[in-house]
């Protein structure tokens, strides 16, 4: 249990790993917008191409990327079925006397939706979860959202909470393991019995876990006070983030991709999303 991975970060040394986390957050947002801009076959082809480029740039193993698609498999199947059977169009594919009617437009819509959802998951995964550590992500969000401090949104406090939560995940996981073993030694069983019994068996784990978590919180609060923590007022940071030229280039490329997709949509060639 000691090796619980933080999030889904995949350590590697790729251009995407080295990129400034703030730039990656911006890129992820832009990429999401781009996926929604795509309207016809040509722009979707470009989307697929861009996704392939991202996969290559990220140095992530293909297996990992396919695995990231598994949780959304149901959504993909569900939307394609709905799109295939529910879309009405002009080109009927099934014989006219069938009760179930499938149109060519429906097939295209299903394909487009699948591509869109996949690109969405792939893009956020590659830009955020797989190539950025959760702590860098928290840091980036704190800095990107810092203008909100002006309207009294406690951005720093939220980021601090997030950091502490991340710091204590392995500690509390280990603790849970210990408590479970202690309860097992007293004859508790967590894997047998009805669902209700199993849920009841969790109570003797959760209560000590909560008590200890609160004690830890008090200790940590004292320790932080001793180390002069007093919010972000006048606080400096060890890690300074610098945008580099490559970050700017990446953002510009993404913007031009968006503009490109926008104009490709206007070409009236090939099937388009109806």
């Amino acid at each position: 249990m000691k090796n619980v991975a933080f999030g889904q970060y995949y350590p590697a040394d790729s251009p995407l790993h080295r990129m400034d986390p703030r730039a990656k957050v911006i890129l992820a947002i832009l990429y999401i917008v781009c996926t929604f801009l795509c309207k016809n076959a040509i722009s979707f082809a470009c989307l697929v191409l861009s996704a392939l480029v991202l996969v290559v740039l990220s140095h992530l193993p293909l297996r990992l990327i396919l695995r990231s698609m598994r949780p959304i498999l149901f959504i993909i199947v569900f939307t394609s079925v709905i799109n295939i059977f529910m879309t009405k169009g002009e080109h009927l594919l099934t014989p006219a006397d069938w009760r179930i009617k499938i149109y060519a437009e429906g097939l295209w819509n299903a394909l487009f939706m699948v591509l869109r959802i996949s690109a969405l998951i792939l893009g956020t995964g590659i830009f955020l979860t797989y190539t950025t550590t959760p702590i860098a992500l928290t840091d980036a969000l704190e800095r990107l959202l810092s203008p909100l401090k002006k309207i009294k949104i406690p951005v720093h406090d939220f980021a601090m909470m997030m950091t502490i939560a991340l710091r204590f995940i392995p500690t509390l996981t280990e603790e849970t393991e210990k408590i479970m073993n202690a309860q097992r030694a007293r004859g508790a069983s967590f894997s047998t019995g009805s669902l209700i019994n199993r849920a009841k068996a969790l109570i003797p784990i959760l209560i000590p876990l909560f008590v200890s978590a609160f004690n830890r919180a008090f200790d940590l609060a004292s320790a932080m006070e001793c180390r002069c923590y007093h919010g972000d007022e006048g606080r400096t940071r060890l890690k300074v983030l610098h945008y580099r030229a490559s970050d700017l280039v990446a953002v510009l490329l993404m913007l031009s991709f968006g503009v490109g997709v926008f104009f490709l949509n206007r070409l009236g060639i090939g099937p388009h999303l109806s």
Partner: protein
Amino acid sequence: MPELFIHTEDLCFTYDAEGPDAQPALKGITLDIYKGEYVAVLGHNGSGKSTFAKLLNLLLEPTSGRLTVAGMDLTAPSIGEKELLELRRNVGMVFQNPDNQLVATIVEEDVAFGPENLGIPHPELRTRVDEALEALDMTAYAQHEPHRLSGGQKQRVAIAGILAMMPKCIVFDEATAMLDPSGRREVLRTLRMLNREFGITILNITHYMNEAAEADRVIVINDGTLLADGTPDEVFAQRQRLCEVGLEVPQCTELLCRLREAGIDIPGERISSAESCADLIVAALGRHAEKGGKCHG
């Protein structure tokens, strides 16, 4: 005359002072601690020794009495946010559970936490972190995640985090209680090093007698009052008094005392360290052999 660092006069503290079950934890402590001293504070669980520590950087506020730390009168009403930060920068504190005092997910960022809060600007911040890690011999672990380190290493990271604030005094509140013997040795070596090389005043609050024997001065707190104060040899010589309140003396002191009780002549006052104890016994054995030799000769 060394500079006075901590001065207390009839210092009292009561938990939940206004509440129905007010419990006095400190009942009038008067003592002086000088700059650069290495002091061990001994006492049982519940003797008030941890309370005493928490008063020193105002984690708790004294109920009555006087308390001056680093020239700052902590009982004065003028203590504001700024003074409090200055005090806590001067008096660092390391706690018992190493897991509960590390804030960041990367060792070097945790070490930087204190100086970051103090607003140390950039090139200096980096130097401070690197130097603190270097001093604690943790440079190799700068990029590690704290939860993968051993207890002793975690505690050294915590100490590095305090050291990076460049304090004048560090209070160790049972900092070795949760460590295994090797971790405890690591931390004790560090304490001595901080005291000798950095001239930092050390207060080691502990209930291990052998740790106390390593200090230059031992203070025994029992039931909220000062029971003994002196060098380890002076304090442990009062074995009877310590035993009465249920505290033991280090094993070597115990051994010497029992030998004396058995009628073996062991002179000398350095009775708290294992080496001097061994020397005294060897000398006594030597004398014994000489006497025996004369009888037979």
